[in-house]
């Protein structure tokens, strides 16, 4: 194969990997939107918060250390010992469940039957609050996150692909980050688990029932409040996975919460109510923006990755506003 084709393949592969990362974030949005019709603006911040909490547990940071020290004139910052990865992740999941419960208690409960825009505003407020809370609890410095997922380029893949190039051409192999491959595998696993859960468990069935018809769900005795806590907990766990992946890749810092913006075009493409849609939408945007940059980028001066996804989303809004996999509107004739 000529180096040109191999380069294109490399771009596509990397695009797919990036796409998976977008999908991970979009997934959290879809879960909450499906079950409660709320567009959860705080999803990105939840990922940041989950990652911060995880690092905090790993490194044994004392929560609210700065606040405590300022108030009492002490100088404690660290317990001295941290938890191992597994326990830290379990603890973080518990924190996210507690968070979901608090959100239901303090926010959603009081806003039942309000207009969607009011709920949306509430999640914006929630996002700002959590941003501040995260900083206050764990400090605002940039942290590295390492849960033992290998990262860096794969030499094996480089060697394998080098042999694919036609003889005599100058080609040094493809670059693929092992971390990205792991992220893709974990994302697939997550989707499989979520699908099995919603299709074959009683709670999953109740979740889908609530997504279809709130009032009817009430009449069969499904408690909307319980369902909301469950959904927000699951979204919190998905946020944790996204936070781990993005955090391992680029460090845990404020900009992590901005990945939520990239999820928006993914959602428009895939449809707000479809889990497969979130995945496929993410992949299309990932591959699309990388290929566009590779082929068209040089002609227009590059940096197309910043806007490509949004322009694509714009086109979709014009021609297929419910997205590729948006809930089919059942209409009997």
């Amino acid at each position, binding site marked *: 194969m000529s180096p040109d084709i191999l380069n294109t393949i490399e771009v596509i592969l990397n695009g797919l990997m990036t796409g998976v990362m977008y999908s991970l974030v979009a997934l959290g949005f879809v879960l909450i939107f499906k079950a409660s019709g709320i567009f959860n603006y705080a999803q990105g911040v939840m990922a940041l918060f989950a990652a911060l909490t995880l690092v905090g547990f790993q490194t044994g940071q004392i929560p609210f250390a700065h606040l405590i020290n300022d108030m009492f004139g002490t100088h404690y910052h660290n317990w001295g010992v941290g938890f191992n990865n597994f326990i830290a992740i379990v603890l973080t999941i518990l924190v996210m469940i507690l968070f979901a419960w608090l959100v239901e208690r303090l926010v959603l409960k009081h806003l039942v039957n309000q207009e969607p825009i009011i709920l949306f505003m509430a999640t914006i407020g929630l996002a700002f609050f959590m941003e501040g809370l995260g900083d206050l609890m764990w400090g605002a410095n940039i942290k590295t996150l390492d849960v033992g997922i290998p990262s860096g380029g794969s030499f094996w893949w480089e060697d394998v692909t080098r042999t694919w190039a036609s003889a005599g051409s100058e080609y040094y192999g493809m670059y693929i980050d092992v971390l990205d491959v792991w992220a893709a595998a974990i994302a697939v696993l997550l989707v499989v688990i979520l699908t099995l859960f919603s299709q074959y468990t009683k709670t999953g*069935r*109740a979740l889908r029932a609530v997504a*279809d*018809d709130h009032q009817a769900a*009430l*009449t*069969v*005795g*499904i408690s909307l409040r319980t369902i909301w806590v469950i959904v927000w907990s699951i979204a919190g766990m998905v946020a944790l996975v996204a936070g781990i992946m993005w955090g391992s890749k680029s460090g845990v810092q404020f900009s992590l919460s901005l990945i939520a913006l990239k999820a928006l075009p993914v959602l428009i493409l895939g449809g707000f109510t479809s889990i497969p849609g979130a995945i496929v939408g993410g992949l299309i945007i990932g591959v699309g923006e990388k290929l566009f940059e590779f082929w068209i980028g040089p002609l227009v001066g590059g940096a197309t990755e910043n806007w490509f996804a949004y322009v694509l989303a714009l086109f979709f809004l014009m021609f297929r506003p419910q997205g590729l996999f948006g809930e089919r509107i059942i209409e009997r004739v």
Partner: protein
Amino acid sequence: MSEDNNIVLTVNNIEVIYDHVILVLKGVSLEVPEGGIVALLGANGAGKTTTIKSISNILGTERGEVTKGSIEFMGEKIENLTPTELVKRGVVQVMEGRHCFEHLTVEENLLTGAYIRKDGKKQIRDDLEMVYSYFPRLKERARSQAGYTSGGEQQMTAVGRALMARPKVILLDEPSMGLAPQLVEEIFEIIRDLNQKEKVTFLLAEQNTTVALRYATYGYILENGRVVMDGEARSLAENEDVKEFYLGISGGDKKSFRDVKHYRRRKRWLA
């Protein structure tokens, strides 16, 4: 109402206000005896659905509120219980317009009805078979998405779903809505069957007065948020006023609003 019947459900003089301003029920009282089929009759906007929803306590989702009066189920006050708690005690509503879960299959719809039950898979399976025996058509459509089934099948799914909760009382809102007359008969036959064989008590809001009075044991007539008349179904069906205003049978010669006597009679109803 005869004294030897146990009253399971009592509504005492309730007043319902929507959005803090709109007074919809102006003091409705009714009693449902154990094992009865009680019909709640009246025109559009009379307050039938509101009465049903205030019993099942899902008014809150529509910004409605019971401001006066009380509701009792088997001697206990229930107006402050959550819908979940009510379903657990055996009061289940079937909403007007069916409200099936469109994207779930018919069988999944039925299974969600058993959501609150804790008595094990075996019993739930058995009840599923029981529902299928009353509605054989649902068994054929078990795997199709409920949204794609016919109106009659959706109504059956909704009733079946309520049955899966093992209810003592089913609050059935407008089961005949949008169905062909034949199908309406079929559904009512099944309701009578369920009432006799499964000992389910029904409170049934219905516009189709003719059919409802044929199957019900007792009836209440609502107008403008008040009960204007009640009695045994048979005696209601024979009442001259009911015949004229609800059943569309007048006593021979044509009536006109110029006829003072007729006008007064009608007015008395609306007062």
